């Protein structure tokens, strides 16, 4: 049984089946990420004044990641073009580059995530809020048993400050690169567990900004990893199809490239929305 148009395009549509399939799949992915972006908009518009964070993400690092992905999109096209020009060796080279760039992206993202998971927001028993990056935690640290010490590098905010000052105080947390935000002096702060009412890291649970940040970038990263796995398979075991059915193999590279471009495109939207705006 032969399914027609798996390799040769159908004359009236000009497409082979897998191309139709991947474009349809990408349409559904647009709706998926679109829903998340819409949620971002709704959550941000609904946030009270002064409580939506700015400048919590490192722009140069994000820019680097953007360039990594854009370059990987270029190398994936070069890989497909190499096959079209019958140059298997060059295909292997460019495809390998794509995989390496993908891994670099995930690596940089992990570094960013790690930064968030070591950034603590500590509610002190006396009502003040301490905020900073972890320096060290004593080995016997246990909040429930009220034992141990924690050292962070950051600043303390007085939440009980009078109204006019509260906005300024909040800006040191929610807009650290603004003029008021920069006024906070960062230093080494040490607290005993007994002084702490509660504490948490800047994970998804911290506020809706981190929640949507981790969900959007997490889902995107899963797509990067998934795409990288497929591309790796095609680079390694899948490459033997070049010997038996070169046209079909080239089409597979084209399809994976289309998916990869989509993943890149999502990041092109994610970067300005999360990092710049």
């Amino acid at each position, binding site marked *: *049984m032969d399914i027609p148009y798996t390799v040769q395009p159908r004359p009236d549509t000009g497409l082979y089946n897998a191309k139709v399939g991947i474009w349809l799949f990408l349409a559904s992915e647009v709706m998926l990420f679109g829903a998340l972006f819409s949620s971002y908009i709704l959550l941000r518009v609904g946030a009270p004044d002064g409580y939506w964070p700015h400048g919590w993400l490192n722009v140069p690092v994000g820019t680097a990641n953007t360039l990594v992905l854009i370059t990987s999109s270029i190398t994936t096209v070069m890989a497909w073009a190499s096959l079209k020009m019958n140059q298997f060796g060059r295909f292997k080279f460019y495809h390998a580059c794509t995989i390496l760039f993908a891994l670099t992206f995930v690596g940089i993202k992990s570094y960013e995530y790690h930064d968030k998971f070591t950034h603590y927001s500590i509610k002190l028993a006396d009502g003040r809020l301490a905020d900073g990056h972890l320096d060290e935690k004593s080995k016997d640290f246990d909040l429930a048993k009220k034992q141990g010490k924690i050292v962070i590098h950051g600043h303390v905010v007085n939440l009980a400050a009078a109204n006019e000052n509260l906005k300024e105080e909040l800006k040191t947390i929610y807009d650290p690169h603004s003029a008021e935000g920069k006024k906070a002096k960062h230093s080494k702060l040490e607290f005993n567990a007994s002084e702490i009412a509660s504490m948490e890291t800047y994970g998804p649970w911290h506020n809706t900004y981190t929640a949507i940040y981790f969900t959007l970038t997490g889902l995107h990263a899963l797509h990067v990893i998934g795409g990288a796995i497929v591309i790796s398979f095609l680079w390694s075991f899948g490459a033997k199809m070049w010997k038996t059915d070169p046209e079909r193999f080239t089409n597979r590279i084209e399809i994976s490239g289309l998916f990869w471009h989509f993943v890149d495109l999502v990041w092109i939207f994610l970067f300005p929305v999360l990092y710049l705006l």
Partner: protein
Amino acid sequence: MATAIPHTGVHEVHHHETDFWRTYVFSTDHKIIGIQYAVTALFFLFFGFLLMVMMRWQIAHPGQPVPLVGFLLERVLHNAQGASLAPKGIINGDLYNSFGAMHGTIMVFMAIVPLAFAAFGNYVVPLQIGAPDMAFPRVNMASYQAYVLGGLIMFISFFIPDGAAQAGWTSYSPLATSIATNGQTFWLVGMIFLITSSLLGAVNFIATIIQLRAPGMTWMRLPFFVWAQFVTAFLLLLAFPPLEAAGVMQLMDKVAHTSFFLPTGLAVGGQLANVSGGGSPLLWQHLFWFLGHPEVYVLILPAMGIVGEIIANNTRKPLWGYKSLVYSVLTIGFLSFIVWAHHMYLTGMGNRVATFFQTTTMIISIPSVIILTCMFLSLWGGSIRFNTPMLFVMAFLPMFGIGGLTGLPLGFNFSDLHLHDTYYIIAHFHYIVAPGTIFALFAGIYFWFPKITGRMMSEFWGKVHFWSSLIFMNLIFQPMFAQGMAGMLRRMVDGGANYSQAQVPGGLGGLSPHMLDLHRFILYAAILLGLAQIPFIINLFWSINHGVKVNSDNPWQSTTLEWQTPTPPPHGNFAQVPEVHRGPYEYSVPGHSTDFTPQNESEQRIPNPITKPLPA
């Protein structure tokens, strides 16, 4: 069960001989996958029905142990402390809520959509367009497996400590994540699998219909069933992902303690919840109903497709208004994306937004009415054969009419204010899905059974099944309109006793004893409806090996391509690629010796008796 691979006797010439597992379990053949979907979906349909009967019994007898199965519920369902969820066999409020939530979820996502879209679509669409299989057979297998996994997760969730999800099939936050049990987590993970299954299926259907039509099968020669499935696939493709996103977010609310849908200041059980807040419960509703509304068109469009096929075949006439039907399904597809907030009129939306959704909702009723009207008009002047499929399909027309018309007061915000979340809504949507879609699906089973098995189902028992189902379905749902208009709300384990005139004597709007008595009437009708399915189930299985054998590959004398194959169609469907020469409903064409001309029959030159007299 008849095999998809024809037996070639002692001399096995087949190159692709595969073992039992590859042929029947891990199959990539669209016909086997279609049957797999049908069998699984029918099981879930039956299970969802049982949940409903238990619920209806409890509503009619609040606080009393459920007979027959009460002891089973007591034994099998436990909470986290080990105590039974149904002590003494009585379904309490929480258990009732989980039955209700799962009845809706199972019926919509695990019974109707897999049966109407995946089962019938998988089996019939490639045959009707003249293709050897779906465009992506392995993706097809993957989509069935994802469905089974999702269904299993949902099914198992009943038996975990504290039981299944309890917050309705709509799973509104903050309730959904505030209930401290794991049922909701299972529901969300199950939904992700089910949505993945639908997305893979949708990609397959659309690519197949675009790319694999046989030569001569132009778009306007497609059977209406294929058009309906095409639009349904687009609805699934584009509407499900927002729910998937919402499901991921709600799952994160539950396990990662985010606050996507949890507002600031949320208190659970009198205590301030330990969450960051800042979220929006409305966001969940918007994302859910953005799928939810196209979803209901997913439930009805394949059914309308089946109705079209069976009407044309049994009136021996082309469908009236083929072009109108095609443009109407396409219009419904587009419009269904911009009406969703008519499910949210009571959320405090402003007049302008409400007016927008009211307007689009009224507009979308137009193509729906056009489709129904075309079906009705198709009957006029037809040479009607009243076989079982035709009876179900003819009943579909007024039943869907009732369901659709009763939706009009719901589309208007001013009347919906009174009717929202009452039994009126339950009656409205069940009329569309139960004596609507399910009747069309029954019709499809009776209609395509001879192609799948080579035997007819019993006509007599088919008619028994039809009349009893029609009567009892109406007896169940008709009273609910009255109950709803009297103010009886949905999802109440005591059936409204708390709001009865007995409970609040002299109070305005208390439910009358008559309204509450109707619960028992509805219960009896539901039990009888269940009993009425027994002859169908027996008929279905018995006829596989003992039904009357068909004497041709085309026992209904149909024009469409699925009937122009061997019975059952072999792997690859057509011995040679069919060539299509005409439209899908060339019935009773003047001058032809038969009253039907199959789409792929070769052209013959028939002298026109009016302009050219026949030779003497």
